[in-house]
């Protein structure tokens, strides 16, 4: 018997053959009317034969499918009767055409029109059986829905105050998850869930909803069962979501009402949230919804203002007329082993670094750099260049300098006196100069424009850092694990804000 059911399910596939062939036959009959296009005549005999044979085959498969059970009601009766009629009519047409050509010519138009009409109606009924009766018109314009006897779709309620618990919350889920088997046309178990009345009436085994008693309601029991249970619903489909079950349970307990508003039933907070989300579905696939509140305490307004500022800065840069730094200055720098770039296409101040990092510079090289570009250099990298205090003495004349890297050299506190005369210095990197000690703290603190200093791997002690911080609380001091200022926060892995995950 199972093999019969297996074959029966091919009905929904095979049915497309006679449908197509009937339309082909109709087209050919029309083209060859009154002796036109005699070249197409030979195709007609074949088309009629194929139509009749496939129609008979499909009807047989259809009866097998019906034998499986579960199809009840007027729709399936009509579909069966009309389908059988198609097989009969097409067979009659085929035989008449080959055996009684003159008779056929008289009845030809009537037979073809009848077949096409039958196939349209039968096909539609079949579609209703497999997809549910609302399928075709679900998204139809309202005037078509009204012709089909359905309620027009209004703008869907989006707030709890406007939403009806049945129409706006429960019914859409029923339509999506249940109506394929429990509708007016396909009432498996005698249950029609497409209307409120049908839902309250219940099925062959009695009511599925007991108002005010979710625990005693068969619907709630079945959708809550594990998928492997015999009574589980929706059968052979994924279960309802936890949220959906929660909302159904709440609705039944609250009396399974319709004609009121959700807000009037005063649902608990979690149900309110779920319904709110159902009423306002978030677009999937990463599309933007409402900007959620930042979880990490950063103030959104400040961030937005900052972002605006960044965007404005960008616009200003873009608007600047391109200018070119003096090529002779650059040539001088290149000649002694530096690489020089402009700050940006509109700003000819120079960013200077070694062309071969780590290869070192002589006092003469530094001298050349300074005399060629004294008011041009804004950012200078002299890291890992084997420099001593005397070598860097000339850089005191780089009056525009804001950023200076001197890390990994052989400098001592004496150099800090030199740096003190740079009027615009914002940041200096002294990392890995063991000769810089606590004795230089006073000189660093005296640099008015300075905002950030790197002192890791120098001779400066923790006490020295503390002293500098006291003298210049505005200064960001990065000294590895002794850091102070804005940069020091990350060194503390377990701050007061630490919270346990709740689970």
């Amino acid at each position, binding site marked *: 018997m199972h093999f019969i059911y297996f074959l029966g399910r091919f009905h929904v596939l095979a049915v497309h053959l006679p449908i197509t062939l009937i339309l082909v036959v109709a087209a050919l009959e029309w083209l060859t009317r009154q002796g036109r296009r005699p070249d197409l005549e030979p195709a007609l005999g074949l088309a009629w034969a194929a139509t009749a044979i496939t129609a008979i085959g499909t009807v047989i498969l259809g009866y097998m499918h019906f034998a499986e059970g579960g199809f009840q009601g007027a729709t399936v009766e009509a579909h069966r009767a009309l389908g059988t009629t198609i097989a009969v009519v097409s067979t009659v047409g085929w035989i008449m055409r080959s055996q009684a050509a003159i008779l056929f010519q008289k009845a030809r138009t009537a037979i073809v029109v009848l077949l096409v009409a039958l196939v349209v109606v039968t096909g539609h009924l079949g579609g209703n059986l497999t997809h549910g009766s609302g399928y075709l018109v679900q998204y139809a314009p309202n005037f078509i829905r009204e012709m089909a006897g359905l309620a027009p779709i209004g703008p869907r309620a989006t707030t709890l105050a406007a939403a009806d618990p049945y129409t706006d919350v429960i019914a859409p889920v029923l339509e999506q998850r249940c109506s394929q088997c429990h509708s007016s046309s396909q009432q498996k178990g005698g249950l029609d869930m497409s209307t409120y009345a049908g839902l309250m009436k219940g099925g062959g085994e009695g009511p599925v909803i007991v108002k005010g008693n979710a625990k005693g309601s068969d619907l709630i029991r079945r959708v809550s069962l594990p998928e492997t249970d015999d009574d589980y619903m929706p059968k052979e489909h*994924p279960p309802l979501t*936890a949220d*959906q079950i929660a909302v159904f349970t709440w609705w039944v307990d609250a009396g399974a009402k319709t004609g009121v508003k959700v807000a009037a039933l005063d649902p608990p907070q979690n149900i309110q949230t779920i319904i709110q*989300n*159902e009423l306002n*579905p*978030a677009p*999937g*696939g*990463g599309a*933007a*919804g409402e900007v*959620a509140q930042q979880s*990490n*305490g*950063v103030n959104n307004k400040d*961030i*937005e203002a*900052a*972002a605006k*500022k*960044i965007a404005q*800065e*960008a616009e200003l*840069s*873009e608007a600047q*007329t*391109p*200018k*070119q730094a003096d090529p002779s200055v650059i040539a001088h720098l*290149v*000649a002694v*082993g530096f690489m020089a770039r402009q*700050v*940006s*296409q*509109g*700003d000819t101040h120079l*960013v200077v*670094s070694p*062309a*071969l*990092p780590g*290869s070192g510079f002589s006092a003469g090289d530094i001298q050349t750099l300074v005399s060629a570009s004294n008011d041009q250099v804004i*950012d200078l990298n002299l*890291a890992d260049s084997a420099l001593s205090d005397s070598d860097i003495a000339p850089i005191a004349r780089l009056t525009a300098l*804001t*950023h200076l890297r001197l890390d990994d050299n052989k400098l001592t506190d004496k150099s800090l006196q030199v740096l003190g005369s740079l009027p615009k210095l914002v*940041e200096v*990197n002294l*990392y890995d100069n063991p000769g810089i000690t606590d004795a230089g703290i006073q000189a660093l603190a005296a640099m008015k424009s300075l905002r950030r200093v*790197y002192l890791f791997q120098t001779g400066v002690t923790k006490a020295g850092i503390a002293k500098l911080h006291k003298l210049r609380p505005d200064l960001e001091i990065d000294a*590895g694990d002794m850091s102070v200022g804005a940069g020091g*926060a990350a*060194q503390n*892995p377990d701050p007061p*804000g*630490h919270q346990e*995950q709740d*689970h």
Partner: protein
Amino acid sequence: MKRSSKRDGAISIGGSDLKDVIDGARRSFLMKAGLGLGVGAVAAADVLGITPANATIGQPGQVGRNAPNLGTKGTGVYPARAKRVIYIHMLGANSTVDLWDNKPTLWKLNGQPMPQSELGTQKLSSMSSGQTAFLCAAPMAPMHQYGQSGVWVSDLLPHMSGIVDDLCFIRSMYTVQLNHDPAGVLMHTGFQLPGRPSDGAWISYALGNDNTNLPSFIVMTSGVGQGVPLDTADWSAGFLPSEFQGAELRSGVDPVLYLNNLGGVTSQERRKLLDSLSDMAKADYRSSQDPDIFSRIRQYEMAYRMQHSVPEIVDFSDEPKSVMDMYGPDVIQPGTFARNCLIARRLSERGVKFITLYAMGWDHHFQLTTLLPARCKEFDQPAAALIRDLKQRGMLEDTLVVCGSEFGRTPFAQGSIAGAWGRDHHGGNYTWWMAGGGTRAGYTHGETDDFSYNVVGKPTTTYDLNATMLRLLGIDHERLTYLYLGRNYRLTDQFGDVVNEVIDSSGSSLS
């Protein structure tokens, strides 16, 4: 994603832009038909860097025949906040729902089906789309909040949790590509089919290098891909001149094979050989006018200079023990992520513009519970050490570190949750982090929903990420173009918006 209309294709050549030598050569090729041979010879001298002004570069005892490589633009439109990039690609797609994106809902509903409303119509990979159930799977390990920023971090990343205040997170990344290779190629080149120039190639092309003796774009790999392809298209130069392609350092003991001269060949002889080759190339150029000849000669020259520069890069004898310890015990093993991180720091110090580190082996469809902790153990300490190390040297300020994967992984389990389950590919949302280079430390951009399945605020694409990266380097992503087959191409294709929120506004490094 907006389609850009602004100045598309208008290459701004102004300010300190150096002569666009490549286009110069191209032009001279076109002029050959009308003007004869003379023009080409001039361009050749120019390009080979043998003009008198350039010939003096370099220190005594160093090999230096070329002028500094400032790229074709030298500098961007904006003052640069970052001077170089270290790009960590966790190949295979790390599970950010386990590591960064804390969702109490997943703990609560562990083992229960994801709501249908949540799954929606989002595309699933064919590896899990046939599953009958999509059960929520709680993260591998508990998460806690760290730092002043209060960022949630998994217990699998104990070292990263100590530096969260230096990081800037983008939680709202999403992508349309769910297969490793196209998603990775899309991320690196702005297009999902191979053939376009990669991020590092574009940046080298624009800005050149800050070290004459090393390639401007270096690629290193660690770990095992486990079937996830490592596609050379990710560091290809595409249609840009071939010298901008990423130079791959091998993961073995010798980062470059055959680097040393053959026995009996001295450095002087090698030099003479290259000079002769160069002469022949010039002759070749006079007849063929093919600009690619210069690319090749420049690469010969680069290889020659790397004979000196590369052995020193991987010689850690000058690193103090404290630094070695910081990166963890793996740092002495060739081919580990730890060692690559330390090499990356050393390359950054020496001015390499763009370094891509591939940390492979994150494609955990199955056995997530054992594989993810193992990968995290290899990754956590070195990655955190890299940030700390750069920071205490004062280099984090102008070194942009970006880290993430080609996509994320599903909050639901792939396979039976009772067995060796894993997580499938997920493009709906995933987390990236950035550090330094002018990014806003301690900030988290974008929001995901309660299941870490969809983006609900500030969606960000790989185009946006690339546009932002270029912006931090001073480049307008809409103006960095290359004319090829009649069209001006960009790294961001036709999309991308700079994410201004992730840029630190408290003052640029060049205010």
